[in-house]
Structure formats: C-alpha cells, structure tokens
C-alpha cells in the first residue's frame, strides 16, 4: 500500500515535470539578454527552496528527537538532510553552469551561491559526523544537536554574506524584482514535482535507515548468542 503511494507520487512528479518542460521550452517568452539558458532557473531556484525545506524538516525532526528520544525522528532527520543536500548540490551546480555562461566565471562570491555553499558544508559535515559515531543513540543525540546549530546558523550566514558582498563589486545580477508573472507561476509549478520527489526519496531513505538500525540490533543479537 505504502509502496503504491510512493509510486503514485513519483508518477505524478514525472508527469508534472514533463508538462512543465514542454511549457518551458515552447511557450514561455524569452529573457532579453540571456537566451535559452535562463530557463535553468526553473530548476535552480526551486531546488534551493526544496533544500531549505529539507533542512528545516531536519531541524524539526532533531528537536522532536531530543525531546522524546524516539529514534524514528533520527531516521527522519538523516533522510531529509541527505535529500536536502542532494537538492542543494543541484542548486550549486546549476548556479555554477549559469554563472559560467552569463558571467563568464564558474564561481563568484555572490551572496546566494555563497550562502548555499556554506549550508552545503554544514550539512555535509552533519553526514560526516554521523559516520564517526557508531552507537545509535549517541549518534542520534550528537547529530540532532549539530542539526540545530547548523540551522540556527543558516539565516545568520545569509545576512552576513549579503552584507559582505554588497561591499565588494559584483557581476551584474539578473532579475531583481520584476519577473513576468508567467515565469513566477512556472517557478512555483516546477517546485511541486521537486517537492514530490523530495518526499518520495526522503520516505525511502527513512525506511532504509530504520531497517539498517533494526538489522544492526539483530546482528548484535545473533553474534551474542
């Protein structure tokens, strides 16, 4: 039953993506200076949004874990962080490709890209920290505390890097406020399938984490006998 729900969500995501791609490529008006590459934004930006949804979910899961010590929430935390990190990678890579074409450089200390990089480092650190602790309860505790610290840092990083970069000359950034309403719609419309994918992957990963934990317990039992 659960499997069917997951497949259903996946299918919905794929269908929506297909439809979006068609609309994106065929119908939407063009942006004056950039040519076709600007359409990457419909994946670049929603990927960032999805990543932050993941990190926020990790925060909530971590807090709930610390409050109740229910290891299910630890499994949830690692699942959403991993998937969030995958989407953050998508955001960074598409951003770099876009930057290479538009600004001519692979990397720049643009506030948003830099903040995302720092978040990426933080949550990659989270995953690394988890690997360093073997005992499940201790691992969950340590990881939860780090997740809370990491998320508390996210808005501060965002503001500090934004202030930092406004003091330095930057490449001209496209598209401040005004964007064609059709584009905004597409942005949100493309976010939906990404969120669906996020949900499916996180559910899968969470189940794996729980299975892994049960198996480690069983193995300890088997070897003890």
């Amino acid at each position, binding site marked *: 039953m659960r499997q069917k729900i997951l497949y259903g969500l996946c299918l919905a995501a794929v269908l929506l993506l297909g439809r979006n791609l068609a609309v994106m490529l065929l119908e939407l008006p063009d942006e004056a200076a950039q040519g076709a590459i600007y359409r990457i934004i419909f994946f670049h930006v929603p990927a960032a949004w999805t990543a932050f949804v993941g990190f926020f979910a990790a925060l909530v899961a971590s807090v709930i874990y610390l409050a109740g010590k229910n290891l299910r929430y630890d499994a949830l935390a690692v699942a959403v962080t991993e998937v969030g990190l995958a989407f953050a990678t998508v955001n960074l890579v598409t951003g770099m490709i876009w930057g290479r074409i538009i600004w001519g450089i692979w990397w720049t200390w643009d506030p948003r890209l830099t903040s995302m990089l720092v978040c990426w480092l933080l949550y990659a650190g989270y995953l690394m920290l988890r690997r360093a602790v073997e005992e499940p309860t201790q691992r969950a505790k340590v990881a939860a*505390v780090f997740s809370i610290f990491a998320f508390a840092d996210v808005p501060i990083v965002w503001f500090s890097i934004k202030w930092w970069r406004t003091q330095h000359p930057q490449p001209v950034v496209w598209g401040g406020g005004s964007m064609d309403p059709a584009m905004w719609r597409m942005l949100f419309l493309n976010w939906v399938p990404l969120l669906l994918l996020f949900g499916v992957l996180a559910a899968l990963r969470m189940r794996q984490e729980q299975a892994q934990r049960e198996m480690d317990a069983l193995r300890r039992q088997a070897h003890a006998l």
Partner: protein
Amino acid sequence: MNFLRQSWIVAAKDLRAELRTKEALNASLSFALVILLLFSFAFDPTAEQTREISGGLLWIVFAFAGALILNRSFARELVNDCLDALVASPLSGAALFFGKCLANVVLLLAIELVCLPVFGVFYNVRWTRQFWPLLLVLALGTWALTVVGTMFSALTVNLRLRELMLPTLVYPLLIPALIAAIQLTTALVGGQPLAGDLLNWLKMLIGFDIIFTALALALVDTVLVG
C-alpha cells in the same frame, strides 16, 4: 551555589591546570607565530596589501591556533574518567561548559595579544590607533570562536577522529562571525573609527555571540548527560 560561582570554579581549575603545564598554550602560541611568519614569507605583502588583508590574516591565525586549545578543552577530562566525575557532580552542565568557555577565552585572548605586536613588527603595521575598539572586537570574536569550539569539543569528546571533526564542523558554523570580525579588524587596524557601516558588523557579531551562547547553554546538558 549559583551558576556564576560554579562557572568561576571550573574556569579557575582549567586555567590553573593549563598554566602549570602550559602545554596547549605553548603549542598554540608557537603555531600562531609560525603561521604569521610563514604568511609573511609566502606573500611578502606590500603596505597596501597588508592593510587590505590584515583582518583576514589575523583571524585565520587566531582560528587555527585556537582550535588547538579548544580541542583539548573537554578532551583533557577523559583521562582518569574526570569527565564522568564532573558530570556526576552537583555542577550543572551549563556551568561546566560556561566555566570552560571562560578559561578558553582568557587563553585565546592572551595568545592574540601576543600575536598583535608580532604582527605589527613583521608586517610593519601600526595597529594601535584604535586600540580599545580593536580589543572589543577581539573579545567578541574570540567569544564566538570559543563558544562554538567548546561546544563542539563537548560534542565530539568521545569520537575517534576528534581532531579532524572539530575544525570541519566548527569553521563553517563560524563563517558569519569570522566575516564580521575580519571586516571590523581590517578597518580598525587601518585606523578607521568604529562608526557607520562598521556598527552593523558589530551588531551582527554581538547577535551571533548571544544566539550561540544561548543555544549552547540550552543544549550542553543534553550533550554531556544525554
């Protein structure tokens, strides 16, 4: 006994222990001085360049050297099960943590105050023009470094690869505080007064300190006791 008195006792113990052997202090201080000199050889900056990078250079030195001291903070209690004894004592986890932070801040500030004149001499920089604001920034930045570093020392105390984990986890978290401290230090070393744009950075640094101190004090009991 109240919180501050408990913290003071822990801080005094840590400082006394460190000052008797001076192990970490010497290692950290030598490391800091060596990096300072190495950068001077590696980049051989002109006066103009030095003015631009002074904040970055100093805070990188402080962050790296500080990691040596912060790493040991809780790790030194592992020997003879001292950590278990401390946790089992009537000392609250928060007081233990705060006391260690106080001790670490004192040690780090001492190292920084030695580094500054050395920096002035070898890079030909007159850094004393805004002495008291610079000291304020040093204190605030060091507090940020210490709070996060000590917290993660507690978090990673039982892990293998502790020495590797601490820098990897702590430095990304500290980026906002480091950026603020660097901006402020570069400006102050260059003689600018603490005004205008700089006040925003100061506010951010203070905000960072408050938020992370509060978070750390709230979570440290969970970390130490479970």
